[in-house]
């Protein structure tokens, strides 16, 4: 019973706040005294709201709040991620570039063309055969844009340890167990990539040196 009364009071207060805020945007808003005389039981609330309003609405800020925004950003992102997981709204982790491309009706060749690299490099990225630290940011950005994924999702995927190529287990017929190749530098992969023009290679290499 008490809870219901409290809830009603809270709703009434919220409704009143919205009305008051709306009125404050009018050319000739009603005075604070008017609101207090109309709703005396909310007098204290009106005083608080009036005191806070200039902080919320001023556009004249010259004081830098970047550091505060950064701190709040970390908190905000973490809360949203937690809430997304709780309400089943989380984005599934990226498990395969090929799969992500397929979901977007793209072939690996399409991805390679859009990113501006050779198909063998896309395959190496798929298997994480390129050292993450050597990958240029431009490459990650283009991959994310092409596959319509978040930068963090792509980075998290490429940071993982290398994996076997799809189907490696089926192709294996020898005696030695299949193993992944050592990771390669991006620049090295570009230089040795068949099917990429020298001009395209130079663009990437120049990008790395910039």
């Amino acid at each position: 019973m008490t809870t219901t009364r409290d809830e009603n009071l809270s709703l009434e207060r919220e409704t009143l706040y919205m009305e008051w805020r709306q009125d404050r945007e009018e050319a000739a808003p009603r005075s604070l005294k008017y609101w207090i005389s109309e709703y005396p039981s909310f007098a204290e609330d009106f005083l608080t709201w009036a005191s806070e309003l200039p902080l919320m609405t001023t556009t004249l800020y010259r004081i830098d709040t970047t550091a505060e925004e950064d701190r709040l950003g970390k908190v905000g992102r973490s809360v949203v991620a937690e809430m997304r997981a709780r309400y089943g709204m989380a984005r599934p982790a990226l498990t395969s570039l090929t799969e992500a491309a397929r979901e977007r009706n793209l072939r690996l060749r399409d991805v390679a063309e859009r990113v501006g690299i050779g198909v063998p490099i896309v395959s190496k990225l798929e298997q994480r055969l390129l050292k993450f630290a050597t990958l240029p940011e431009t490459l990650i950005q283009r991959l994310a844009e092409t596959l319509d994924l978040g930068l963090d999702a792509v980075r998290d995927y490429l940071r993982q340890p290398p994996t076997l190529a799809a189907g490696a287990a089926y192709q294996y017929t020898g005696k030695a167990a299949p193993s992944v190749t050592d990771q390669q530098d991006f620049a090295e992969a570009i230089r040795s990539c068949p099917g990429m023009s020298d001009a395209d290679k130079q663009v990437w290499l120049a990008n790395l040196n910039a």
Partner: protein
Amino acid sequence: MIQMQTNPSEPSASDSIRPLTSGKRYREPSVVKQIEALRRCSRVEFRRRLEIREHTHAGFVSEEALVYFVREFHLSGRSVEAGDLIELLEERCRKRVARTLTGWSQLSQTQREDCYNDLISQMFVALISTETKDEFWEVRFWHCLDWKLSNVAQKYHSIAQNEFVPENGVNEEGRSFDFMSNVAAPGGLSPEQRALVQEALRILTVDQRTVFILFHYEQWTQEEIAQHVKVTDRTVRNRLESAEKRLASWRADELQ
């Protein structure tokens, strides 16, 4: 980064915009126009529009329209996309909240972060709510946010008050001073001065700010303030003086 996996105009519950259930609330015509346009546009275009950050840009998507799509997507099972939009809304809230919270000078950094934590949690729940009381987020996003922010800040302010030790010279009761020589008379501030002072209000304590605003912005007399705030006339004068001193110091720093 905002990611939209499917076309926003792909199968939705209805071809028309979901109406608000409360007869008293109406979306702004400009918001309705945006929603209609976004429902028709391609996935790529939708995403491009979300990337526009300048609110003065013609293609900027208003927060109210974003809330509409959060609910549209969430209701039609496209929860991941709804979550992406909430991420964007959180990002847009940050600057305003950071600026506002710096005005709650008694809150520690940890308390401000806790405030933001609570605020975003509450906003998240409200954004995916189907209750009539939460519809207003689609009508006046910033008012709703301010309302929630005000509530959580007050909660933490109450906690902080119990921990707060007033600095020397700010303990207000019982001090004597020449009030009128320090504080401007009601109406004494020009609109420009008021705008400038508005920026500085964050350095005041909540009590100082309340008294200052009632006196300079609402044109109340000190007696009226004392009566409503339930303190003595002397306390009102002291708070005004403290506020004025702090603001004078702020102005001096600003002019350096």
